[in-house]
């Protein structure tokens, strides 16, 4: 589903932040992405979320060569990808329900479907009673669950997590991970970036290790 072949990435004319990246994500797979700060995890996630383009090599996403894809084509591909951030990135003036409804609205789904799908997904993350709550009134764990609901409400084929448990307590981190595992069982391809070794140790899934912009496999 996702294939990196000798991919390199640089910002402007600076040195390459990612060098000769080679890996493949099969549909339905679950990987961790680890590495110290500055190793290039965020840059790799930017390539995967199609918010940046690679500088060299070949990157294939959903059978499309991203290097040759038009900008309008990337917009459509992005809708097949969900992303959860460490800092949640919810819109504070919208309720939990509206935040979750946002991607459905963007896709042009009918209002009735938007309402029922958004409510259903909030129920699934355990926040059915918080539909009208604004993000500033929610705890860190609740915000992250709203963010997960927003990321998965369109049933994306690929779900990316950028340190999704970084800002929540261990119990909530466990609960969030269970949601991810459940999604993976339903067929969603997962890539979770983390630098929490304990979290990685608890789940027996392949690890992509980044070090100084170069990728190696673990486990």
């Amino acid at each position, binding site marked *: 589903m996702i294939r990196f072949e000798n991919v390199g990435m640089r910002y402007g004319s600076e040195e390459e932040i990612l060098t000769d990246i080679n890996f493949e994500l099969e549909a339905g797979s679950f990987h961790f992405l680890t590495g110290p700060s500055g190793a290039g995890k965020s840059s790799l996630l930017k390539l995967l979320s199609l*918010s940046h383009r690679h500088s060299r090599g070949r990157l294939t996403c959903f059978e499309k060569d991203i290097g040759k894809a038009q900008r309008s084509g990337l917009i459509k591909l*992005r809708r097949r990808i969900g992303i959860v951030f460490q800092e949640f*990135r919810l819109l504070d003036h919208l309720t939990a329900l509206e935040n979750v*409804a*946002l991607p459905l609205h963007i896709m042009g789904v009918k209002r009735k479907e938007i309402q029922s799908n958004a409510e259903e997904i909030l129920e699934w993350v355990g926040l059915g009673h918080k539909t*009208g709550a604004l993000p500033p009134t929610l705890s860190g764990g609740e915000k992250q669950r709203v963010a997960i609901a927003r990321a998965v409400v369109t049933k994306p084929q690929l779900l990316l997590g950028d340190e999704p448990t970084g800002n929540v307590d261990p119990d909530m981190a466990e609960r969030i991970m269970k949601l991810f595992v459940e999604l993976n069982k339903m067929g969603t391809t997962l890539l979770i970036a983390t630098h929490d070794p304990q979290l990685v140790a608890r789940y027996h899934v392949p690890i992509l290790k980044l070090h100084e912009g170069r990728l190696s496999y673990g486990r």
Partner: protein
Amino acid sequence: MAAEDEKTRTSFLEVSFLGRLKTFYFLPPKEKSNRFLPLIIAVMAYLTLLGSATGLAIFNATNAWSTDLSQVLTVQIVHPEAQERERQTRAVMEVLEDTAGVIEARTIPENELEALLEPWLGVGNVTDDLPVPAMVSVTIRQGSRIDTAALNARLRVKAPDASLDDHQQWIGRLTSLSNMVQVAVFVSIALIVLTTVAMVVFATKSALAAHRETVEIMHLIGAKDSLIASEFRKLFMLHGFKGGLIGLIAAMLTISLILYLAARIGGGLLPRLYLTAGQMTLLGLVPFLTSLLSMWTADMTVRHALGKMV
């Protein structure tokens, strides 16, 4: 209370999705990054309206004046002795009666001549011993081409102290002045419009910077540029309309005052300054024009900025 709050939020969702503008309010409803923009647009609209009104009023006045003058000739008989003046005036009238294209030739009575001089000399200061020339007002048929040089020569044969004035020198100067004023007004308005566009570009960039995070999220979750731009379009359309309306109200008050004062001064010294109903309606469209200009500029700016994103 909680249920009430819930109801309010749900209704916002409905308005968000099904509002008449079909706009999803991903920007905060009380967006404050450009709260002074309507005032800036109001000043620009005010200046545009004053400039336009001035240009139009001058155009109307000069147009009316030159139309009136082009149909009127004036014969002046300057002689110190009243008897000779009257003789030559009669001779002039005879020549004019035999001239094709002349509808009416009228000797201007002394009281009318005195009234014309009063604004300069003051009431009652036109004395009997003041040698006021005799004047004959000639109305000619519209479109008739009278050879004024030949007519003047014919008049001079019968009345050596008569001179014909066809006002062409005045009309020419007046038209030149009017054209120059109109060009100046047009250039001023063009500069004001360009300045307004620049202001809106800066304001849009500032709004984009203030909501960079939101725009990035929208972009990441697959929003098309047109959807993101639509929110800014709506926001700046409202800013433009508010500014245009404030400018219109202020300008209309000023224009009304100026026209009122000009009408009071008028009395033959100044041509009548006025705006037609059509022109007033046209000026009344300014709030719509400012909102369209503001909306279009914001849309272009946002799309340009989004175009730089992958």
